[in-house]
């Protein structure tokens, strides 16, 4: 085990995949000598050359397009889109091309590429630089979507994503890059589509992913002091969703709270709530609660931004609500 930062764990994954497989290459804005806006690719171009760690012009559609085309003829590109907000410029390439090519052409060809990007709040970066857009991608059959919350998962999922034969949207979080934690020294992959119980508990299941995991763990810890036992599930993969793990836990706790940083309406929380209700309707002792950002654009203001990002207090309140909630009476 070594303690490393999230960004370093990502870089280690890139490094090892590039060492192991000459088909892997990296492209994006400022990913070369500059090392990426969030320093994930730092040093890679020195190691692998500027062809394999390639600075692109500012052309988000083509960054993804180049990845898709390269993947179709044998490459295994890892493209970086600097902020998920800019992925709005590449939606055709992701949704109509990458996600559909394998299917639409009857399985004739594969598109093994990874689109790395980062999302979320924390820097007061404003309405056009702080969004969380995972919902769009989980609504797109043909994509896989992952959103690691810890250095260990960032490493393992990035390796798995690069090795995957499908287009993977790899969602990092700008507030996680400097987070440090233990990462095993031996190489490994974290399988896509498998959630992780990050804390066991018996009273309520708290389901989350990405940076909100840390808010969830914080809330769970505080509640433990009040003798409330919270099971915290880190989804890690958002498409496919590991409903087995989720439902197993909720079947046990009979209460669930979903937590994410994306805005409420149309967020992943709705999907999870619906699925839990569909599967465990008669088991549930309380309605599934959602703790999310409100339906508001984000201000370019570190202080004000905090009011729109879910915090441990809100999570605790939601959990308390599920605990209070009376059993159904009919």
């Amino acid at each position: 085990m070594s303690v490393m930062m999230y960004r370093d764990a990502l870089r280690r994954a890139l490094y090892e995949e590039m060492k192991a497989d000459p088909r892997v290459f990296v492209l994006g804005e400022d990913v070369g000598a500059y090392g990426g806006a969030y320093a994930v690719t730092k040093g890679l171009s020195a190691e692998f050359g500027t062809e394999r760690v390639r600075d692109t012009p500012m052309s988000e559609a083509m960054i993804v397009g180049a990845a898709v085309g390269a993947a179709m003829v044998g490459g295994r590109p890892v493209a970086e889109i600097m902020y998920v907000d800019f992925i709005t410029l590449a939606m055709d390439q992701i949704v109509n091309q990458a996600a559909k090519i394998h299917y639409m052409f009857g399985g004739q060809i594969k598109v093994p590429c990874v689109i790395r990007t980062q999302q979320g709040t924390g820097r007061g970066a404003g309405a056009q630089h702080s969004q969380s857009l995972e919902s769009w991608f989980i609504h797109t059959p043909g994509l896989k979507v992952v959103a690691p919350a810890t250095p260990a998962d960032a490493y393992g999922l990035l390796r798995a994503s690069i090795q995957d034969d499908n287009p993977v949207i790899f969602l990092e979080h700008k507030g996680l890059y400097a987070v440090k934690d233990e990462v095993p020294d031996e190489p490994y992959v974290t399988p896509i589509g498998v959630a992780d119980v990050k804390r066991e508990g018996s009273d309520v299941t708290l389901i989350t992913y990405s940076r909100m995991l840390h808010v969830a763990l914080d809330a769970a810890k505080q509640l433990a002091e009040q003798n409330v036992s919270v099971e915290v599930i880190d989804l890690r993969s958002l498409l496919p969703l590991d409903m087995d793990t989720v439902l197993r836990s909720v079947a046990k706790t009979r209460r669930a709270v979903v937590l994410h940083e994306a805005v409420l309406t149309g967020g992943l929380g709705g999907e999870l709530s619906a699925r839990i209700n569909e599967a465990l309707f008669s088991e549930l002792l309380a309605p599934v609660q959602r703790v999310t950002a409100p339906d508001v654009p984000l201000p370019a203001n570190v202080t004000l931004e905090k009011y729109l990002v879910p915090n441990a207090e809100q999570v605790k309140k939601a959990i308390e609500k599920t605990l209070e909630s009376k059993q159904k009476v009919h």
Partner: protein
Amino acid sequence: MELDLTKSLYHSMLLIRRSEERILEEMMKGNLASTMCHVSIGQEAVAAGVCSAMQPQDYLTSTHRGHGHFIARGGGLSRMMAELFGKETGYCKGRGGSMHITDVSIGHLGANGIVGGHLGIATGAALWTSLNKSDAVTVCFFGEGAVNEGITHESINMAALWKLPVIFVVENNHYAMSLAWERSTPQLSFTERARAYGIPGVDVDGQDVLAVREVALEAIERARRGEGPTLIGAHTYRFLGHSRADPSKYRPAEEEERERARDPLTIMRAKVGAEMISDQDVEAYEQQVKEVLDAAVKFAEDSPLAQPSTLFEDIYA
């Protein structure tokens, strides 16, 4: 049929022409599985000329109007017809149809329903072959309407910057649905346009298959030498409407008449002369093409419809 180059160019155009006529016929009979179908009748010389300049290791990307590229590149007619009929023996298992007709085994990377969408793919493919030190060249066909899409700019710029082996072939049939070319952009010269990317641009008579071939050969060889992309503007005309639904009322009758008179098949025969392509040759080709098409349609008819259950396959590789 073993044909020399000149004859095979003519044959290729004829095969495209008759195939698309047959496709229209089958469409009228209600045999096509999708309502999306765009024929390139009148534009055959571009596909035939460019594809004749390609090598087996080369790639191409194609458009919604893609039968010509597919056939000129050597795509199989039976499985193409089966695809159009929505059959499980089709290239795309009956789920792609005309607009996505694709045979990856011949380096055909897909007909695309998003106008301009495949320019990313073409440049990306060229990026990989260049990184991978393969000598394959990628040919990217698109209509003049696609020229104004943002991705076209991004992709030509990137290809030019990195000197990628990709050829941008504008099939300029002068209309994007109802929009006349001159109403879509003020810059009508592809030679001029190419200067924005510091690459060679060529305007060529797209009804003259030999001229197209010449230009394509040079561009492809240049790309193969690592000297980067070329922008080719091939001036052609679609003889029919944009799609079945379109009576092309937006085109002046005189223009249609004048342009239809410039049939690439006629032009070629006039150019090479009857010694090269005789009436008997043409008759023989017509006969052979008809047989191939009859067989293709029969294959398509006899093939089973794709099973609904197969729709749940291939979502992931």
